[in-house]
């Protein structure tokens, strides 16, 4: 009986909506992505001595490390769908991707393949030390690209310390040709993690809202891209306004708000099938979708007779549990990484402020007392910080501890809002709106506030949502 009830609730929650109408703004399905399989590379297993120096928040030393990243070699130049000129040209592209990753985040001083000699295939495992020490490089990245008979690619990635003339770490990845960039991101992550001691973040994706058109007739489409802006796709066509996407922890779905039926409603978009379902069957508007860390349940905010509260519902459908019940606007919500707590936004005190509650809605306590208003709080994947939109005259991105202490403002735009964390909790993306024109773009900043840059997007952009590191 219990099983039947659950099954029925799931059907009611996910399948009752008229499928045709709610799918009418959707583009072609993206399909499932491929896997990256780790492969063993010949050679001794290496002891990991831990990071070389510092942490990101030290803002010191290692950001000046010179890293040489020459083209990845190939055993023989073979044709591959990944590059019209074959595996040799692909090896150069892989090195370019790694160079851009390490440079764009202000982390190192990388030198890429276009100004470096090309190592031979055997040299990837036995570097020509003199060549590199003579160029002032402290670190050296070598690698290879091999096309196998079945078409799959094996990418090898090696990090060497030039002064020590020693190998620090190596990894190998087997990917479909379409996923060659993932191998480059995995190699970037390997280098970054080995040198900083931080968790990886390059092999991740970003969902966001692509914006076009004049300020009073803005077209807002759901779009996705890799962490470096590559593999960009529009998922909706633009006939209905789309807002506030969030990737599921396993990248199989995106929750977002769409006006496709004329009302603001949260949909669960399935990336593999390209179809979507309502997160909950209800006549009231649903806003601000959020995933739980395990991906099993979701938070949404629902306005009933003008009063907005936060609810939790299993992702498979079923009964919603109301977590807040004040007369004010309670909205959003972001889980602590262990799933035990939720930070959310409420104007119950008279203005937008940030509150923390237990995951069952108990023990709601305000944490923001640093002046100004606190909006769109997002718990760091590391658990140690909460990023939020601080409204004090202008709108800026700030961080504080989960108890509300140690508030630091990281940006200084006219309107910076909606922070989202890199998978390793070291970089924050947000969107910046320009006064008067209303033009918007994605930006990112590290926790020092020093390394800020705009992310290239094909058109204007808002509401970035950074997904987790990919398996």
């Amino acid at each position, binding site marked *: 009986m219990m099983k039947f009830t659950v099954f029925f609730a799931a059907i009611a929650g996910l399948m009752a909506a008229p499928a045709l109408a709610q799918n009418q703004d959707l583009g072609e399905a993206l399909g499932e992505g491929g896997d990256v399989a780790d492969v063993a590379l010949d050679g001794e297993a290496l002891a990991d001595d831990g990071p070389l120096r510092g942490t990101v928040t030290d803002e010191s030393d290692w950001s000046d490390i010179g890293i040489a990243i020459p083209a990845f070699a190939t055993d023989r130049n073979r044709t591959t769908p990944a590059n019209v000129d074959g595996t040799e040209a692909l090896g150069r592209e892989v090195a370019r991707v790694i160079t851009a990753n390490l440079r764009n985040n202000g982390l190192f001083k990388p030198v890429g393949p276009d100004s470096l000699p090309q190592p031979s295939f055997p040299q990837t495992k036995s570097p020509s030390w003199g060549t590199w020490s003579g160029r002032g490089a402290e670190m050296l990245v070598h690698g290879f690209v091999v096309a196998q008979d079945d078409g799959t690619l094996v990418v090898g990635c090696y990090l060497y310390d030039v002064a020590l003339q020693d190998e620090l770490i190596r990894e190998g990845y087997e990917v479909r040709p379409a996923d060659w960039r993932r191998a480059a991101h995995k190699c970037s992550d390997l280098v970054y993690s080995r040198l900083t001691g931080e968790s990886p973040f390059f092999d991740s994706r970003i969902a966001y809202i692509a914006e076009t058109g*004049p*300020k*009073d007739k*803005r077209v*807002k489409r759901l779009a996705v891209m890799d962490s470096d802006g590559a593999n960009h796709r529009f998922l909706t066509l633009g006939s209905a*306004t789309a*807002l*506030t996407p969030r990737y599921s922890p396993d990248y199989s779905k995106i929750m977002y*708000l769409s006006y496709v039926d*004329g*009302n*603001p409603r949260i949909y669960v978009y399935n990336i593999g099938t390209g179809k979507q379902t309502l997160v909950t069957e209800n006549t009231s*508007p649903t*806003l*601000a979708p959020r995933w739980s860390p395990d991906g099993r349940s979701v938070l949404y*905010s629902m*306005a*009933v*007779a*003008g*009063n*907005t509260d936060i609810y939790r519902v299993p992702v498979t459908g079923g009964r919603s549990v109301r977590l807040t019940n004040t007369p004010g*606007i309670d*909205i*959003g919500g972001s889980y602590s990484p262990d799933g035990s707590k939720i930070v959310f*936004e409420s*104007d119950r005190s008279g*203005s*937008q402020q940030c509150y923390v509650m237990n995951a069952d809605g108990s023990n709601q306590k305000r944490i923001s007392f640093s002046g100004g208003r606190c*909006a*769109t709080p997002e718990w760091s994947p590391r658990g140690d910080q909460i990023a939020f*939109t601080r*409204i004090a005259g202008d*709108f800026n991105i700030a961080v504080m501890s989960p108890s509300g202490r140690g508030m630091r403002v990281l940006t200084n735009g006219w*309107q910076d*809002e*909606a922070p989202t964390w890199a998978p390793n909790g070291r970089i924050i993306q947000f969107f910046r*709106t320009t*006064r*008067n024109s*209303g033009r918007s773009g994605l930006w990112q900043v590290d926790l020092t506030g020093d390394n800020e840059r705009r992310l290239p997007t094909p058109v204007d952009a*808002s*509401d970035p949502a950074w997904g987790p590191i990919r398996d």
Partner: protein
Amino acid sequence: MNSMKATMLLVASATALAACSKKPPEILPPAQVTSPTPAPIDNTPSQSGPIVGSQEHFAGAVGSSSVIYFDTDRFNIDSSDAAALQAQAQYFAQYPQLTFTVEGHADERGTREYNLALGERRANAAKNYLVSLGVDANRVRTVSYGKERPVALASNAAAWAQNRRAASIIIN
């Protein structure tokens, strides 16, 4: 003309009675304030004028009263809002076959999600006030567009004041 007035009164009182039997709205509108009686509505449209059921006809009848405005982060119905909503209620009493949408909007100086919730509040505040004036709640749909659909495009106090609004739109 007399019989017309009588019909209007009957319709108005009937909808008022219907409204009375409903439970009170969750957000109560503020106490009514005395306000100037809105101009009488011309209910005999000329042959060439806009047809009943069009937004044009509604706007022609109530003028600027089809939109009400709010202070920053507020959603209360002030005296000028009340006067505008009374003009709307009078129109909707005259054309009981009409249904309509109240769109709630916010200015750009707010975060996106909060503004969607704020627009909901504003649309519902306007709806609740109309219902308190006798308009059947079933005739009024609400929708919030947050800050996504501004009418004034500059980034200054005057433009933001125009964008913090609840606009009534005829459905049929």
